[in-house]
């Protein structure tokens, strides 16, 4: 891991078009400003971690509450052409 020390207002440039600036430091928290093209996904680490965790739980599925799912399809009118738009 590359480690750099930056002060408030200073930044780092990553590749041709990503820039990260330290906007402020307060009470153990750092405020970052990120300039990146719209096709570069920027997420807090926790978001990825949460989806990974959720995927792991979902992959452990055993029993399926079939009756509840059947009611769901009835309620939404799937399979019933009269209720289709």
């Amino acid at each position, binding site marked *: 891991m590359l480690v750099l020390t930056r002060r408030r207002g200073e930044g780092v440039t990553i590749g041709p078009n990503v820039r990260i600036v330290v906007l402020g430091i307060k009470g153990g928290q750092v405020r970052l400003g990120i300039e990146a093209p*719209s*096709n*570069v*996904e*920027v*997420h807090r680490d926790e*978001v*990825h971690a*949460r*989806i*990974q*965790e*959720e*995927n*792991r*739980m*979902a*992959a*452990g*599925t*055993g*029993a*399926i*509450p*079939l009756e*509840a*799912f*059947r009611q*769901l*399809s009835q*309620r*939404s009118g*799937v*399979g019933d052409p009269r209720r289709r738009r």
Partner: protein
Amino acid sequence: MKCRTTRFGTLDIAEEALLTFPSGILGFAEWTRYVLLDHDTEAPIKWLQCVENPELAFVVLDPVLFKPDYQVALGEDALAELESREGDDLSVVIILTIPSEDPTRVTANLRGPLVMNHRTRRCKQLVLSDDIPTRHPLFDTAVSRPGTPATSLQATAC
């Protein structure tokens, strides 16, 4: 091809039915090839079964069944990964989490939808940047709770 699964026994899968997740599903990046199986009942769920790992399968559901207004916007990276071009049919499914201790408390991961390109059979799990729940209760949706914000889920365009 023959595909061994722990839940459904050995399946015979046509090559053209295979789905490829070039980046895998988050947390399962080493497995990239799956097949979508209908559940053998009138329930609207499907199974996304990995053909490379017999144990790995997810229950998925079309969001139109419980969130008719659910929409996702795709960035250029995602479209490139799906090898998408204009006119391609893309569809979205949501992974369900079904807790073993109480299977009726099913939740839907609206934050990490799966997008499929029907022409290229390529798929991707998106990570939506909006504040959208990873555990949306599936069987609560008919109950309107006053004071909660509108259920509109429109991911902002990237």
